């Protein structure tokens, strides 16, 4: 499903990732961990082609990133649901519209869209806030809207960048349950987190990064 071979990514004054190699099978729920600045976010960005590797090759589903045409990028991204670390919500749109935009981009008709958006909001327990605007919500609630937007389109892969960074332990447990449920339906889930509590005793694979270097793999 996702395959990295000797991938490196350099920025002007530092190397974010160095010779990273790993594979993720279809239907896996996997964690990437490491301290802040270890390259977790960069790794996720390389998967949804927000960044281009300087070395190595990446394959996501049937797309080889080094040969991916610019016109195919939207197509790739429609197969991937992303929970962004900074949420990336549209402040001047209601919660409903923020989630719905993922479906509107995919051309889903309004009737079906309404049902699916409310389902997704129900999943993250924010059905009652559908008419609110993001700035009026807490950080945790905004994070859950971002999650709802990522899952509403039923993507093949979900990437979550620190999805529990702004939430209390109960909400965090709820979010993890949501990921497990989605994964149980066959969706590949990749969660980047520095919070070891999140994957402790889950029995899932954990890839460890340490300042851009691959620091091993373990079963939690």
């Amino acid at each position, binding site marked *: 499903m996702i395959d990295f071979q000797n991938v490196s990514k350099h920025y002007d004054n530092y190397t974010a990732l160095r010779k990273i190699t790993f594979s993720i099978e279809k239907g896996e729920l996997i964690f990437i961990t490491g301290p802040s600045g270890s390259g977790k976010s960069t790794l996720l960005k390389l998967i*949804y082609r927000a960044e281009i590797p300087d070395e190595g090759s990446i394959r996501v589903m049937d797309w080889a990133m080094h040969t991916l045409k610019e016109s195919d990028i*939207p197509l790739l991204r429609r197969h*991937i649901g992303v929970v962004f670390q900074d949420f*990336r919500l*549209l402040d001047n749109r209601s919660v409903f519209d923020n989630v719905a935009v993922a479906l509107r*981009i995919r*051309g889903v008709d309004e009737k079906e869209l309404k049902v699916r958006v409310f389902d997704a909001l129900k999943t993250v327990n924010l059905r009652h806030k559908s008419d609110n605007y993001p700035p009026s919500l807490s950080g945790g609630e905004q994070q859950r809207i971002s999650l709802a937007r990522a899952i509403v389109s039923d993507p093949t892969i979900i990437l979550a960048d620190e999805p529990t960074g702004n939430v209390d332990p109960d909400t965090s447990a709820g979010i993890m349950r949501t990921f497990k449920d989605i994964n149980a339906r066959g969706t590949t889930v990749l969660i980047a987190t520095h919070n070891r509590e999140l994957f402790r005793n889950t029995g899932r694979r954990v890839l460890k990064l340490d300042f851009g270097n691959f620091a091993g793999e373990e079963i939690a």
Partner: protein
Amino acid sequence: MTFSYSFRLALQSILREKWIYLLSVMTIAAGLLFTTITVLFVYNIDSATKKLPEKFSVMLYLSDTISQQERDNIITTVQKDRAVDKAVFIPKDQALKELKSTLKDSAFILEGLGENPLPDSLEIKFKSDAVGPDAVQRLANSVKDMKGIQEIEYGENFLSAVHSLRTGMKTIGMTIFIIMSVGMLFVCYSTVKILFYRKDREIETYKLLGATRSFIRTPFLLEGAVIGFAGGLLSLIGILTLYYFLVFRLSSTFPLLKLIAFPIDLSLAIPLSGLLIGITGAAIAIGRIRY
């Protein structure tokens, strides 16, 4: 994505940024109004002067001693010219008759003349699309040295003046039209560009969520279209009001104003020009969307 959603996004954006839009619409309306006044001015001058050359003719006065052969030669040469529509031979007797009928009550002044003083002549009419100082000069040059020609009479200065006026007005009109169009295009471009930058984060989010170029682009093109079309409509209302005021109110004082023509096609052309300018300006402003 449905078109209606793009339209909704465009409408929301217009309402949110109503003052910027209003300013752009007013600027485009003013630009189009000025352009339309120029176009109308040129159109009316052109219409008024277009018919003048059709009435124009060149007269070749023939000598009394001209032979039939020489006359035929002149007619053949004249008819060969591609600008000539027809050449009519006017015998001196007919010329006198016409002169008498023109003079009407004053015809008595010709009574003491005895012999007809008028020469035979050849009246040359030009094709309406070919008449011009160059064509007339060319014809005059080709026949002036031919045997049997006594005098050539043609209003070269008049024709040149009409021609210069028409060409000059068209050139000035076209120059103003181009300058104003570029200006209006720039207004649309700037407005959409500002809004495009303002929505930078929103557009980036759309891209990351998998939006196609047309999904991102369409609302901006619609916004440009609305600015242009609204500016066009406002300009049309302005020009119709001005026309009404000039032709129906001021013409009692200045009767010449009644002659101002307003081609009905302009009613469609002004809003459509605005629409085209709006869409083009927006398209240039968005540019190529990169992922």
